[in-house]
């Protein structure tokens, strides 16, 4: 078994002012619109929010892919809310395997951190997800086999191989 990396980090620059990006990640309704979920209630520190998967409103093609998952439970627990700077929450990473009870499994911590870029004309977003080392091996393997997302992703990779 290869060593298990505990975290992944993504940094991107978005061509939008920081205030705009902050609203998109911190307003539960706006977050749901792009992410593809329906989360009732505001993101406040400590809030455990139980919502559902709901297809994204920004990309029809992705929305079609998410459609079969509509209504599946989607839960997050907000950890920190530092306006304009940081939102963090815990969740079971992309947990959509039907009929599986994730409650007993460890969560990962997702942190979204904002900074000005390009003199305030753009925003740098850094997403860090950590805690993977605690996820059971079975879950990691199942992500490849049983659930729709990992499966779909791997299918796309194989499709790329065979269509070349």
């Amino acid at each position, binding site marked *: *078994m*290869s*060593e*298990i*990396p505990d975290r*992944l980090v*993504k940094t*991107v620059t*978005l*061509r*939008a002012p920081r205030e*705009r*990006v902050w*609203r*998109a*990640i911190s307003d539960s309704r*706006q977050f749901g*619109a*792009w*992410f*593809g979920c329906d989360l009732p209630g505001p993101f406040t520190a400590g809030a455990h929010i139980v919502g559902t998967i709901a297809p*994204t409103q*920004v*990309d029809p093609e*992705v929305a079609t892919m998410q459609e079969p998952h509509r209504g599946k439970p989607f839960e997050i627990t907000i950890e920190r809310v530092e306006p304009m700077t940081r939102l963090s929450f815990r969740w079971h*990473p*992309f947990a959509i395997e039907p009929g599986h009870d994730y409650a007993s499994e460890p969560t990962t911590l997702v942190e979204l951190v904002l900074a000005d870029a390009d003199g305030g004309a753009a*925003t740098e*977003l850094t*997403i860090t*997800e950590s805690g*993977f080392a605690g*996820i059971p*091996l*079975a*879950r*990691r*393997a*199942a*992500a*490849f*086999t*049983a659930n729709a*997302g*990992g499966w779909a*992703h*791997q*299918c796309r*990779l*194989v499709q790329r*191989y*065979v269509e*070349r």
Partner: protein
Amino acid sequence: MAALAPAAAAVFAALGDPTRLHLVSQLCRDGPQSIARLTDGTDVSRQAVTKHLEALADAGLVRSARDGRERIWTLQTKRLGDARRYLDDISARWDEAIDRLRQFVERDRGD
């Protein structure tokens, strides 16, 4: 990368059957087990389950070892994808989510 294709194709062919996929997720969830336990609670016969397990073994996804009179089947998790592949998958989903966020904040003014 292209050299991996035949091996990947064998894995996908082996998993492209609902019963076999079910057996794999059962072994994922509950760990190594006997044919009797794998057959328990299904309407598939022991012989059929054995055949499916042998197909999975041919693709390198499971292996069996004798334990007294029983054969115990174990998932070859290495073959299914190690921790790195799981993280690659999560990483790809974040990339997709970031694409959507980009569309949301850069195009829609959406309030």
